[in-house]
């Protein structure tokens, strides 16, 4: 894994679907038959069925967010959010009835600096979290800014059955280690 690119992003608004718990309880292999896969399936089905309601969203990429909650260290359970980026400039009341479908939930990620890791092939299904912390974070001068990370899936990701030919960017929110 190469060193990351450091970027700054404005507030990111995502609309999608989520799951909280142990996502691998039903099937733990790196297949689509677990709660992560099912959440993606919900998003794909929704896009197929209600595409006309998604005119305010970026459609050429999707996001998978992993978010730790206060009980995550105790129970191993965490939140998975899968969704699309909301593109329209929010008005004074950012979401009106015709902007975000009611079936979706929104995730508002604060503006942040991100370390962007470019994963290729087998790196995608490996323990890249540990690699990031062991190989880069500890000596980078950065620390984790928020207890989440997200993966950006675009045309470079060819599917679970073509992992070897795929590329995936992982975004970790970071801040300088000496910042209060």
């Amino acid at each position, binding site marked *: 894994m190469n060193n990351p690119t450091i970027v700054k992003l404005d507030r990111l608004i995502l609309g999608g679907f989520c799951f909280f718990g*142990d*996502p*691998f*309880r039903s*099937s*733990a*292999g*790196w297949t689509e038959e677990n709660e992560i896969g099912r959440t993606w399936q919900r998003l794909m089905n929704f896009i197929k069925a209600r595409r006309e309601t998604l005119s305010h969203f970026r459609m050429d990429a999707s996001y998978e967010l*992993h978010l*730790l909650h206060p009980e*995550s*260290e*105790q*129970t*191993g*359970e*965490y939140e998975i959010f899968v969704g699309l980026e909301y593109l329209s400039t929010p008005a004074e009341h950012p979401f009106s009835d015709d902007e975000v479908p009611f079936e979706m939930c929104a995730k508002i990620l604060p503006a942040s600096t991100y370390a962007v890791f470019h994963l290729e092939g087998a790196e995608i299904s*490996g*323990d890249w*979290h*540990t690699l990031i*912390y062991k190989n880069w974070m500890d000596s980078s001068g950065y620390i984790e800014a928020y207890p989440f990370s997200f993966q950006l899936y675009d045309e470079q990701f060819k599917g679970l059955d073509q992992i070897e030919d795929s590329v995936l960017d992982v975004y970790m929110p970071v801040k300088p280690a000496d910042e209060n």
Partner: protein
Amino acid sequence: MSSNPPGSESIKAILQALKVVEDGLQKPLRVLDMADAAGYSLYHFSRLFNRVVHHSPYDYLIRRRLSESANDLQDPAQKIIDIALRYQFSSHESFSRAFKRMFGKAPSLGRDSSTDPHKLLDPVREDMLVLIHSDLLCIQARTLPRLKLVGLVDQSPDPDQHPSVIMRQLKQILGNKKAGGELQQYCILRMYPSDWQSHGLQVMAAAIQDDSTAHHPALTEKILPPGDWAAITAGSSSTDSLLRRFIYQIWLPGADVQLRLPFELEMYNGALSSSTTELLIPVSTS
């Protein structure tokens, strides 16, 4: 059974985590601590643990704690609240709720009789992980018609004990072939009453027979209703005890089925002993 078995490094890492669980049953152990022991991030550890052990890490930890607490309950000098707190439950109520969910009865009733070993979770060790990920382990769904079993019944304290004496006696009575020339289909039926762990189970060495076969006065008849069964086979390197623990403690809690009847059928191919155990358990969908 294993289409893509975990590598030996992954198994080693999970064994480290399992050891930490045993050391931490009475301590404030977190799943993050288990992940750290394995050397993985929480995310990767969760995926791997589920895959290797067929339990989620937290589920495994809680089930191990409850299993040990069930043993402690047999000592009437220990208060339930003390046991609950010892095993890291925050209150009598949360302990009782979890206990009832796992064992089907309140902790106070758990004192009256020892807990069904089939409902406990013993520590998972390397031999169980090897079995789980063996290419020889196979679980298939079968639908069987009504079965008439004819044979000899005995009491046994231990399901792993082979009823060789009554099986030999039965074969002397019935022989290897039926009246029409077909081979006898021999089997062993194990029947678990609710208190079997204290009073033993009933074991029947039996032959599967047609309704038209005349009743033999020396033999007992038992009818098994039609229904779905799970047929589990494993290679000869796994013991019956290990296979039973796999079925009841690992596979059944996570399966989409539940036990339909407190029975177990072990099918024979005519030989007195088989190099490959096949156990059938009656199941129904949840």
